[in-house]
């Protein structure tokens, strides 16, 4: 088994794994510990993300009071940073359900340590993404127009528009992801309830829904969890496919592409897995979760990124080949312009970030090096934002009529909102890590030897 040991070297089930948890009690203590008292580092992190959020809020306030003119969007580029960032955050929201549901269905062991934080990331990322259609509206107080509701004039939204499909796809995805997330949390919240006192105990008690870990409850829990996993898995594919159709349904050159659905889904998983690495690496060191979240998990996430990076590279290549092979002058013009025109810097930076930089992870040494993992994951996050920038901006800036061509650059308001969205996301995530178990206690225990008499439980 020598070759296997080398691969499974970081698996917590490995008797030789460093800091391997030995008892259920130790698992409880280790994972509850971060909730006891905020450390200076946690407070500093909170101060930074709240500061970013406040800046974003101020930028939005400027837009509400001054009008959409403070944003850089103008004819012909009417979809700017807001839509780019919307697609980016929707993409980030993919990895959680992928790791949680799909890896659960394929019996993958390494999901255990990271799935809870990934699910939280999904829910918060989708909450962040949902801000952007509202921001992009301008008159955000009329956002309820997105939804079908009875009204006197019998006016309905345009159900034939892919943008409307998006509303329903994302709402469904958000609802199912949130319920799936909460169902998984229930047994762990019960552990928190049992370890807390006073009002906090009552709050956790209410949230634990009467969980006592009886056989009957576990039976229902496992059935529900399996059902939600199977239900959520197709949604991972569907939601970003529908987002991709926001573009692919238009006859716009550079957008009308049949490969968009799987290409967008792969890109979403790619960016989501990179974001999990970016978030969990500092958290692991901040909260001392090494026995539960360690290089074994990060290496597997890096492998997921390698796979999806390969799919993206394939898709980029196919787009160019077919644009050339089709002899469609409009398609070829836009793809040529992306690589050589005013936004070529963004295109080539995207290629570097998404296709070239991840290649270092083909070396095991590099994908098990914390610095390499952290830096390349950050590069991927930048690259995936740029990918959406390339798609959204270039095709609208150079559309069919050369008389209307114009360039777009974001204003400080749009950049402020972009940074504010990261602050909004980070605030939710840090609060979650301080309030709920960000590592799944019950599933970690399945990897620890069961308690036996005299084992010191």
């Amino acid at each position, binding site marked *: 088994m020598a*070759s296997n040991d080398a691969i499974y070297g970081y698996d917590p089930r490995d008797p030789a794994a460093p800091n391997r948890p030995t008892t259920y009690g130790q698992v409880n203590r280790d994972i509850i510990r971060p909730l006891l008292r905020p450390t200076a580092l946690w407070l500093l992190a909170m101060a930074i993300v709240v500061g970013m959020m406040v800046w974003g809020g101020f930028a939005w306030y400027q837009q509400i009071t001054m009008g959409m003119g403070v944003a850089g969007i103008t004819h012909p580029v009417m979809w700017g940073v807001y839509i780019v960032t919307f697609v980016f955050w929707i993409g980030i929201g993919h990895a959680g359900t992928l790791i949680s549901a799909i890896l659960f*269905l394929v019996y993958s062991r390494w999901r255990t340590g990271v799935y809870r934080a990934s699910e939280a990331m999904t829910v918060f990322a989708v909450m962040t993404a949902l801000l952007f259609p509202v921001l992009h509206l301008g008159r955000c107080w009329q956002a309820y127009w997105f939804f079908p509701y009875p009204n006197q004039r019998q006016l309905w939204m345009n159900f034939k528009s892919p943008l409307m499909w998006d509303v329903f796809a994302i709402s469904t995805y958000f609802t199912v992801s949130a319920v799936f997330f909460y169902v998984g949390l229930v047994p762990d919240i019960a552990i928190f309830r049992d370890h807390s006192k006073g009002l906090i105990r009552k709050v956790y008690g209410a949230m634990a829904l009467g969980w006592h870990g009886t056989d009957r409850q576990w039976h229902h829990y496992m059935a529900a969890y399996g059902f939600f996993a199977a239900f959520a898995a197709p949604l991972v594919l569907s939601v970003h496919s529908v987002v991709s159709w926001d573009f692919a349904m238009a006859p716009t050159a550079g957008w009308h592409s049949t490969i968009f*659905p*799987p290409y967008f889904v792969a890109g979403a998983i790619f960016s989501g897995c990179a974001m999990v690495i970016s978030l969990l690496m500092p958290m692991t060191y901040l909260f001392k979760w090494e026995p539960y979240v360690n290089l074994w998990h990060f290496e597997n996430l890096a492998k997921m990124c390698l796979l999806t990076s390969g799919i993206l590279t*394939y898709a980029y290549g*196919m787009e160019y080949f*077919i644009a050339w092979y089709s002899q469609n002058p409009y398609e070829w013009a836009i793809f040529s312009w992306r690589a050589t025109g005013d936004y070529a810097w963004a295109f080539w930076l995207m290629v570097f970030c998404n296709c070239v930089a991840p290649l270092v992870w083909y070396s095991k040494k590099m994908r098990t090096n914390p610095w390499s993992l952290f830096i390349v994951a950050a590069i991927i996050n930048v690259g995936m934002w740029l990918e959406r920038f390339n798609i959204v901006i270039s095709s609208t800036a150079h559309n069919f009529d050369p008389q209307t061509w114009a360039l777009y650059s974001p204003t400080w308001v749009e950049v402020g909102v972009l940074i504010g969205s990261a602050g909004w996301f980070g605030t939710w995530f840090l609060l979650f890590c301080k309030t709920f178990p960000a590592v799944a206690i019950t599933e970690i225990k399945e990897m620890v030897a069961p308690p036996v008499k005299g084992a010191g439980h």
Partner: protein
Amino acid sequence: MSHHHPDVNTVIDAVPGRVLPASVSMASMAAIAAGLGAFAYGLFASEGGAPVAWGAWLVGTIYLIGISQGGVMFSVIQSGTLGRWGRPLKRVAEAFGLFLPVAWVLLLVFLVAGLKIYPWHPETWAHGGPVALAPHSAEAPASKEMWLTPVGFVVRNLALAGLLFGLSFVYLRASLRPDLMLAAARLGSKAPSWWSWFTSGGGDVSAEVDAGQRRQRAMVPLMGMSYALLMSFLAFDLLMSLAPWWVSNMFGGWIFMSSFWLSLAFLALFATAGLDWLGLRGWVSSTTTHTLGRMMLAGTMFWGYTTFGQLLPIWYTNMPEETDYLLVRMYLPQWQWMSQTVAVMCFIAPFTMLLSRGVKKMRWPLAGVAAMIAVGVFMERTLLVLPQTWWGDHFPVMDFVVVCGGVWIGFVGLFVQVVGRILASMPAIPVSDPQLEEHPWDVHVHAPGATAAHH
């Protein structure tokens, strides 16, 4: 050895003297003869003539390339993911891969003799002569005139297929070598002579086992990229260029993913039919077929997803240069029934049936669904090819049934004959593979009440 599996030595000892069962051999030879007869009828006597006959040959060739290369990828995925559930099926899948040289010859024959079915060929059989490939505007690249030339097309496709098949052979050698060395050491002079292609220059078996595992894992990324890229270009050239002005940039991905799915269906058929003959009983459990069924279900859903993913943007945008490809297949009466049948056999029926855990766990019901997928994919590939090689108002049903069906049966017969003979003469499971057994850390011993003791 494992508590759950029989001794691997019984698998090795079963090899000498094992032959393809007479009934299977006779049936597959009869299928080959029928295929040749159908092809000759198509070529010389049918209403469709050479374009339909060579179209049927192209369908069969693409079909068998898909199964064979998909089998290699099944093995590659098992290596890359350290998957254990499918290890007992790995050798059967690899035997599919050993058919690739025959598939290359079938492709060669088509490219030499059947190239005129392409409407861009200067001497095409298409009604109305060759399609003009010149760009419609000065701003468009003159790509088609450059890409779609007879010599370039033949050389490119033989080279692409040769490269992919060559890489597959290198991978298969890394997998087969330690097994065959181990088996040869046990069988001595009873070992088949062709094993020496794989075992020559061998040394210590345990060192070869480690080296084989390392080589297989090292080749996983290369095999994945080569399969996706080279199969895509084969699909663009061999299938999509039949309609030279129609493009879909998901077409390549659609073909290579559905080829893998088709290979899973054939794996289910071979594992079911050959369970006792190949000594797989005791290795292939209901859990194995359940997981294989889940993969087939995933493949079915992915086929539906990628098919709809191409259909919807084309339908919605409604541009004539894109919709004509669909209109011909979905609305013309001579093809409409086939596209509707494909939708049922490739998605609606298998999706519904494979949702059942029972169907996935029982071998024969799963084989039934697999057979339906196998026929469905044949019809789907036919639907891609035949509307481009037959231009009449009403497609003669006999031409389809006799020529297309007959040639396909012949190709399947050839595949069964060749792969059956290969499987008969080697251990049907990867006997030296360390992943054949359950991982020791995956074996849980639960104390009574351990679940309730979670917290």
